[in-house]
């Protein structure tokens, strides 16, 4: 397994480079201009100057290689310098956002905490809801529980988050005034009061996202459970006199989790990608909001860096999914 992992990593590098090139070209070719949000009152000559100041005068491949160098050399070394007080890349330009002129990595670092707490937590909650629902629905196929679960998850999945989010805000923030509608990213949890505040501001975005995720995962869980409940080994397990709980929760579940775990693992990079609409509705301002605002502003360095990090995560999680597959299913061997 370890050797398999080690073998996959060098293979990932050329493909990642290729992905970065495709993303870069895509951003280059797609319409829109980094200065699109500059008011119309700013005359074209001035815009031209601003464009040059962003380095857009250079040919695309020069900018691409500059970005590669910045991403793979300057940024890591900058981090190294900052930690060990050295000065290897001092004065060299880091990746700077067009929009805010702030180093892209600094912004990303600012955004990670709220994304993880809200989006990551909601994913966790979603998974924790989805798995039991999927199990019970499959075991009691066509029971009222299954019907209700199917109904709710389908309605939950077909209701867009921009809708459920607003409904929650109107009910719980406007009418009942239980939870705030605006997420405070500056809140630091230091005591019980601030913890409580954090919990309150997380309730609504987490609910919206968790429901959406749960709806999806529970369907896959249910399908997989149904497939496995019909296998011969289930009969063997029953013949041993095991309780239904053990049969289902141990024997069947472990086998059913194999495909579901890949679904879950592959959904994880999306957590880091943020939940664009929900972040927008509740103003969580995590990575999703960062990405969307950068795209809208045609902030190429930001978009490129974010999507590339995202691509790395996808590659990593694909690998993790494959490895998990191997761990959960001993028949699959990687070495």
């Amino acid at each position: 397994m370890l050797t398999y992992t080690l073998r996959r990593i060098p293979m990932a590098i050329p493909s990642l480079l290729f992905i970065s090139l495709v993303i870069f070209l895509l951003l280059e070719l797609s319409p829109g201009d980094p200065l699109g949000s500059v008011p119309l009152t700013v005359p074209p000559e001035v815009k031209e100057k601003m464009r040059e100041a962003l380095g857009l005068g250079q040919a695309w491949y020069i900018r691409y290689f500059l970005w590669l160098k910045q991403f793979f050399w300057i940024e890591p070394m900058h981090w190294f310098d900052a930690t060990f007080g050295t000065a290897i890349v001092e004065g060299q330009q880091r990746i700077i956002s067009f929009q805010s002129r702030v180093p892209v990595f600094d912004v990303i670092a600012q955004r990670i905490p709220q994304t993880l707490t809200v989006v990551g937590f909601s994913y966790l909650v979603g998974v924790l809801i989805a798995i039991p629902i999927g199990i019970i629905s499959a075991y009691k196929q066509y029971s009222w529980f299954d019907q209700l679960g199917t109904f709710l998850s389908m309605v939950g999945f077909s209701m867009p988050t921009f809708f459920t989010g607003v409904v929650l805000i109107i009910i719980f923030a406007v009418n009942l005034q239980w939870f705030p509608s605006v997420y405070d990213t500056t809140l630091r949890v230091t005591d019980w009061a601030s913890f409580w505040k954090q919990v309150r501001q997380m309730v609504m975005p987490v609910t919206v996202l968790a429901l959406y995720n749960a709806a999806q995962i529970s369907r896959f869980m249910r399908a997989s459970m149904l497939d496995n409940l019909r296998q011969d080994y289930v009969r063997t397990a029953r013949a041993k006199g095991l309780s239904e709980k053990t049969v289902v929760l141990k024997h069947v579940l472990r086998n059913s989790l194999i495909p579901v775990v890949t679904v879950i693992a592959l959904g994880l990079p999306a957590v880091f990608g943020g939940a664009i609409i929900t972040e927008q509705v509740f103003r969580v301002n995590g990575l999703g909001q960062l990405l969307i605002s950068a795209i809208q502003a045609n902030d190429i360095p930001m978009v490129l860096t974010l999507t590339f990090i995202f691509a790395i995560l996808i590659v990593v999680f694909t690998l993790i999914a494959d490895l998990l597959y191997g761990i959960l299913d001993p028949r699959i061997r990687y070495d």
Partner: protein
Amino acid sequence: MIRETASNAVSPAASTLPPDDPVSASPGTPATRSQWRDVWAQFRSHRGAMIALVLFVLILLFVLVGPWVWQVDATFVDIRARNKGPSWAHPLGTDQLGRDTLARLMAGGKTSIAVGLTAMIIAVTLGSLIGILAGFYRRLDAPLSRLIELFLALPLLPLLLLMVTLFREPLAKNLGAGLGTFLLIVVAIGATSWMQAARIVRGDVLGLKEREFILAARSIGTPNRRMVLRHILPNVLSPIMVAATLGIASAIITESALSFLGLGFPPDFPTWGRLLFDAIPQMQTYPMRVILPGALISLTVLTVNYIGDGLRDAMDPRIRGR
């Protein structure tokens, strides 16, 4: 003790050919009844699926035949009749521009269902195809897996915007604005949402490939194409079904999101997703305007889900009729 039917056989080994079915008394039933008739028979016994099918047909009638019955132009703006409640002239009231809600729901449904189904079919076909190819052909696995990763990583918005820039005008010119946009939208949604299905199918196929009946099929000379169609595909149907039903829901929603990128249908073109979105700011004052399209979307997705469930059960021989 041996019954009369079997007693002409002195011994089982000497029984006349063909022997009777040990239990059911219908010897020599022709095997020509097609697989689909079977599936249909099984499907009919699935109560939830049948109800869903009826509902789905009703929805289809509503959006397809409805406009023939209720001949009000969905885009007719009457600013004197804005925000009206239900009346004989407008059974479901009017919207903020005085357009007839009933007519808009019908027209919107036609587009939404067409987009949802087509985009889902594109995505699921693409996903299954790539998943199967990646799982089945060792050689293709690595490149296709990388392709999946690439597509997962691509930022959607710029991609969609690029597609619009490149194709909107030529398509509109050659196919007309409506069809051109439709094509653009379904391809855009389909081409950007097949990856999950592909990953899951690939995993399943990898496992399936090791099964002995595949080897057996090879030994009787089954060519690869038939191998995939007849042996692999039916055995990976259940995750594909899930992906398909989820796909319809997200395609209907994504369509409405696309119009906010200027990629969607022209602004006067109603779709359920857009009706829902447009009504959200005022949902406290006019709740019906969100409830109606929302309920229709959910209902469609639910019925498709049940039909999918029924189909899967009907196609899976291991489930006995319940």
